[in-house]
């Protein structure tokens, strides 16, 4: 980036903030194809505030930014710990939010938990509370989100993903059949579902969760979807004994979830555990396909091909013999 581009960027960013303070870019968190994330210093009256700017890379992502800003505001109002928004430019597809201290890398957080098991319990109850609050965000403002509440519709969606793969995956086919055979008959009101609540997408300190991030996969759905996702073996990062994210127990998560007003449904929890394991297995299989088709050339995507079998195993164990 040239000095001129840099100056243009900081001017544009400053224009989004109230009072048009001075803005300095202090670092680059990520340079995705979809989105740039920059660390900023916002300087006003000799006071420096650390901030984060997310800048959409294209029109599609700009629409997501608008949605994300709306959600962050809704989540904050509902009492979820999220970074406070300092400014949004919908046309430019940019959100500037306050910088929150905390660790995001899962293995580092799990090392902290190993050193202090009490932190694990704290993270489990923070997760339960945060999810219960997310599920209580009023849905009126979010009617445009995709609705995946019904188990029938979710099974159809999984079959569609399966059909889009160019190689057969009998284990996943078995998974779709299981989802259909065990479909849920609950009639429930759709809630806001985060869609990717797990280590890697939250910030944590030695005090617990400091912010819930990464709202890109948010949709309307069954609250048990979020809870089940957090409990998949794949998100325990090797700490398999601790069912919840590799850091806590199901009892701790459940009791915090219920205490904060969430309703726990065992049968639905199990159904969604199967459904989300299937979804992630299909996700990895799609990464492999992108690699094989030449659409992506990262060795990490190629290596995903050898992880699909883990999800197959998890799926078979969860489905049991029926």
């Amino acid at each position: 980036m040239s000095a001129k581009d840099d100056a243009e960027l900081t001017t544009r960013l400053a224009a989004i903030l109230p009072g048009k303070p001075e803005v300095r870019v202090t670092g680059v968190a990520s340079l995705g194809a979809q989105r740039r994330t920059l660390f900023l210093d916002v300087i006003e009256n000799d006071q420096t505030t650390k901030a984060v700017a997310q800048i959409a890379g294209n029109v599609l992502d700009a629409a997501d930014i608008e949605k994300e800003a709306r959600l962050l505001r809704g989540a904050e109002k509902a009492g979820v710990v999220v970074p406070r928004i300092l400014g949004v430019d919908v046309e430019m597809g940019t959100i500037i939010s306050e910088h929150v201290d905390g660790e995001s890398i899962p293995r580092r957080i799990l090392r902290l938990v190993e050193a202090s098991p009490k932190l694990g319990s704290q993270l489990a109850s923070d997760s339960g509370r945060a999810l219960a609050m997310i599920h209580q965000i009023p849905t009126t403002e979010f009617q445009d989100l995709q609705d995946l509440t019904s188990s029938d519709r979710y099974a159809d969606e999984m079959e569609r993903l399966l059909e889009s793969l160019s190689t057969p995956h009998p284990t996943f086919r078995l998974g779709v059949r299981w989802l259909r055979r065990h479909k849920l008959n609950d009639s429930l009101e759709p809630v806001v579902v985060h869609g990717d609540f797990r280590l890697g997408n939250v910030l944590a300190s030695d005090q617990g969760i400091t912010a819930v991030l990464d709202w890109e996969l948010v949709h309307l759905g069954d609250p048990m979807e979020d809870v089940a996702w957090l409990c998949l073996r794949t998100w325990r990062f090797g700490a398999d004994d601790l069912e919840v994210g590799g850091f806590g127990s199901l009892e701790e998560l459940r009791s915090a979830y219920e205490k904060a007003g969430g309703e726990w449904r065992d049968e639905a929890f199990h159904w969604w555990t199967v459904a989300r394991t299937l979804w992630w297995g299909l996700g990895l299989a799609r990464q492999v396909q992108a690699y094989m088709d030449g659409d992506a050339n990262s060795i990490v995507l190629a290596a995903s091909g050898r992880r699909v079998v883990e999800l197959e195993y998890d799926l078979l164990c969860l489905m049991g013999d029926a």
Partner: protein
Amino acid sequence: MLDRPDATTLLKAMAETLSNEVLPATSGGTRHAVRVVANLCRILEREVVAGPTASEQTRQALADLLDDHADATLPDLVAKLDQALRDGDSSSATDDATFDSRVRKVILADVERRLAIDRPGYAS
């Protein structure tokens, strides 16, 4: 006649060189890539040893399950199983569950053989 060192010896040496010599000299994203590649070498080392037998065992189990002729190929059998599961009669839930339970047994054995190559220790 193939030359020496053979594939397993070379893959083992490649993994060790990456882990012991290259990894300490790298950082950040490169470090992650080196770890991934070293792990892939170890997967391939195990695959060279156990892969052919694992595939043959699955091939035989699928031929039995699907009543197919004894020399049907593995890709054909997998495609046939997938088709059978896709066309399965979901109106008779009991038959369905019985068939799925037989399929599950064969698939689980195959998955365990693949895990022994791709991620030893995962199925325990």
